[in-house]
């Protein structure tokens, strides 16, 4: 389940000119976990249910947003920058879901929601999170994944 997300992140970061992404040690985290300064959550529905949450510092988010925004320097983390992070999260999740579909698990996603601010606690109903820590040229990004198979 984690591989499509890993592959999607690498692919999208590469398309943003980021060749040197490295993954840290994959892990598990029990709910709740502490978020970062910028947290984008994308809901997944269909054969799998749950959330994917992208967490990063504001500095990292600004670097990602700037690249998404054709190189526009981000001086304040405004609505435009926020929409760029939402789109980034949407694209990564969308790519991962497409790959899950190729493997026979059909899902859809809900539009990303963004939480900005320190000391955000992320909780999930019944599970812990799979954690993908990424070291990217933009800075560190952590992806928390909480997914379970839907009742058939």
């Amino acid at each position: 389940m984690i591989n499509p997300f890993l592959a999607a992140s690498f692919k999208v970061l590469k398309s943003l000119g980021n060749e040197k992404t490295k993954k840290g040690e994959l892990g598990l985290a029990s709910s709740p976990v502490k978020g970062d300064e910028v947290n984008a959550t994308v809901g997944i529905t269909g054969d799998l249910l749950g959330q994917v949450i992208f967490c990063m510092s504001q500095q990292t988010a600004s670097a990602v947003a700037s690249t998404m925004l054709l190189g526009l320097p981000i001086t304040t983390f405004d609505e435009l920058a926020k929409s760029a992070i939402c789109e980034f999260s949407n694209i990564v999740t969308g790519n991962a879901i497409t790959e899950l579909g190729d493997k026979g698990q059909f899902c859809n996603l809900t539009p990303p929601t963004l939480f900005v601010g320190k000391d955000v606690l992320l909780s999930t109903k019944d599970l812990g999170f799979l954690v993908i820590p990424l070291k990217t040229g933009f800075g560190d990004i952590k992806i928390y994944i909480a997914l379970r198979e839907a009742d058939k």
Partner: protein
Amino acid sequence: MRTIKVLNLVPGMVLGQDILFPQTGATLVSAGTKLTVELIRRIEAFGIKEVMIAQSDKSRQEVKEEELIPVMTEYHNRAINTAEEIISGSSEQPIEEGVVKELVSELLEQVDLDSDLMLNLSHLKSYDNYLFSHCVNVSILSILIGESLGYSSEELNLIGTAALVHDLGMMKVPNKIWKKNDVLTPEELTLIKNHPVYGGEMLKDFPEEVVSIVKEHHERFDGSGYPQGLKGDDIAFKARIIGLADVYDACISNRPYRSKLTPQQALQIIFQDKDKFDPHILKVFISVMAIYPIGSLVQLSTGEIARVVRVNKYQPFRPIMEILFDRNGNKLEPALRIDLDDDKNNMIHIKHNLSPEEHNSILEKLGAAF
């Protein structure tokens, strides 16, 4: 209700007042009638110049886009012809403010009707005569930025007027210089750099504000502009707006020294040179243009090729598009409309902007459609 010139009527508009036979005073068309192409022709044939129409916003919803496109294309072409008459004529006799104002008020009406369509028209055609279409397009763009800044209709008229004549001074620069695709000599460069001043001098009858805007439209926020090298707040605010619109439209037009760039490349160039522009105006500009400006050709994550037809102010990455080619390259007729902000399209995103070469080859394939 508002008065509108018969020339600018569009099918779908609703009459706000009876139209009477000029000779007899009998009713020709009664108030509340939804206009059709046929009716507009008849009104025109009776020599009627102006009519009252019901609220524009309401009528806009009733106008079908496919009916609007040919009509607005014609307006746009006519506006360029009029701009040519005005600007070319200026070498023989002084330019009259009234004539320019009339054209600008028509442009304002069209922008009011459907600004997205107007923006679409600015780059779906390659005009032989750059200068005149450029003046019209910069006027449209400046009006749109002004609207987003909350300008009154007087201010919109003023900025539209100044934008329409901003490059008037180019008439004083010999044709062979500004059509040259080679390095300019220092003398030629001086002439070019003085065109804003020449333009200002040619506008004797115009309001002081219009004159200073024209003179300062090539000044840049960081002081790198010409001819005076003014900086920041020393440059007239509306000149800063027109300066930005000017750069954008020049980028998306074919020039003697390079072929036109894609809308996104134009944005990239502006962002790279961001210090040259007022940050506040730049922000408004981005909200008007979004990240995939109208006219952008993109590939979707589904493999399909689409053209951006309307932008979403609140979701700059999720515009409304028309899918032109399916994932196998087959042309879709008619094009399929898709709103990326629609929930059912959550899984779809714009993969990338097509290259200028791809833009050109697709525009060629579409050919007569626009």
